[in-house]
């Protein structure tokens, strides 16, 4: 008879009722012959029961209000609404001509066209960042396909920046429509679930390069710039000084190929 020797793991699996019936039988007969092991197994089983009983009441407590899942979902939905209001405010202020230089530079067009790009990015952020179901069309797992797709539509080689050193993971991206043709949108998030949107598209003629320009309204902030005919912008619900280094990182990576 060549039965596998009984191991410590078997004894624990016996306690946790994790053994196949046949093995369970073998362990049980071993325990019959070995009172020391049987004593330990009984003690472990008793521990298990005591722990389960002692902790059972926690699971029976009424769930506190702050852990009410419906409230948490509602809370998440409200944030994008604030984002929309910020965009609306930005537009109103700009149209009224009351804004500071950042708002004006965002909306008055100007020769470099960055303002239009920034506005497009803010719209895309407002539409896609709050989307819990399908914020991106192609997920990060298919980033090669994503790059190929947007590069062919933009007729430019588009690189997807890697923002992991800043704590942001690529979620994926999609092609978005702008009044200046197709743009590539990439979305990132961090461990808190905060999302950033990067939008890039070719700039219209005459704006090959433009220095990085901040734009902000409410809790939406962003930076836009142009490099060799491509416009870039990064938008998020973060303070400008948090976004700036990330935008710098994108500029560094997305630069000339």
């Amino acid at each position, binding site marked *: 008879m060549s039965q596998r020797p009984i191991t*410590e*793991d078997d004894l*624990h*699996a016996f*306690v*946790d009722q*994790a053994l196949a019936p046949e093995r369970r039988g073998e362990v049980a007969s071993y325990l019959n012959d070995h009172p020391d092991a049987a004593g*330990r197994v009984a*003690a*472990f089983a*008793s*521990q*298990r*029961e*005591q*722990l*389960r*009983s*002692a*902790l*059972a*009441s*926690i*699971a*029976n*407590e009424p*769930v*506190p209000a*702050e*852990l009410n*899942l*419906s409230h*948490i*979902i509602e*809370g*998440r939905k409200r944030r994008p609404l604030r984002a929309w209001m910020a965009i609306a405010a930005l537009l109103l202020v700009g149209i009224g001509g009351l804004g500071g230089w950042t708002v004006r530079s965002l909306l008055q067009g100007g020769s470099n066209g960055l303002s239009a790009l920034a506005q497009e990015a803010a719209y895309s952020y407002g539409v896609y960042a709050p989307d*819990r*179901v*399908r*914020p991106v069309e192609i997920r990060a797992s298919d980033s090669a396909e994503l790059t190929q797709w947007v590069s062919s539509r933009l007729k430019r080689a588009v690189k997807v920046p890697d923002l992991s050193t800043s704590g942001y993971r690529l*979620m994926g991206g999609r092609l978005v429509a702008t009044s200046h043709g197709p743009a590539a949108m990439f979305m990132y*998030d961090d*461990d*808190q*679930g905060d999302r950033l949107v990067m939008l890039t598209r070719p700039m219209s003629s005459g704006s090959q390069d433009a220095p990085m320009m901040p734009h902000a309204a409410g809790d939406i902030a962003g930076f836009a710039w142009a490099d060799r005919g491509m416009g870039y912008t990064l938008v998020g619900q973060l303070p400008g000084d948090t976004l700036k280094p990330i935008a710098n990182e994108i500029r560094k990576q997305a630069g000339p190929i």
Partner: protein
Amino acid sequence: MKDMLVQVEPLIPSLRRYARALMRDRTTADDLVQDCLERAVSRWHQRRDGSVRAWLFTILHNLAVTQFRQTATRGRHMPIDDAGERELASAAAQEHRLIYQDVLNKLARLPEEQRAVLLLVAVEDFSYADAAKLLDVPVGTVMSRLSRARERLQQEMEGAAPGNVVELRSVK
């Protein structure tokens, strides 16, 4: 979102139980669960196929580990919160309360890694393989932590007054 509500809501009590037993403090534990749920809501679309329960426990556990690292620099923790003190108000329950408190205090003295394994396996009913995946360690590590946790808890219990041990064993 409806789908999420249906799948996640029933798991909240066990998430609270795990967090409380691990963190030993009611407020800290519930804050952790809240953080876990916020993340679950924001990343619902990102989760891979597989058990929602294991996914949630993984998020929660990783948050707890981060918390441990932070508190490690601030010295020892508070004693474990009474397990449902208010809910154990009846006379019969009062009798058991001391015994429960005793086993929880002993549990609290285990190293965090051992405590986590023991709770996931013996209380939350995760398989050894699932616990390993959740903790991102090999199954062998789960088994050795489980074994050390049980031996150590047993030593603590035997170290208690003999009368106490008998009393403990009478509770089934």
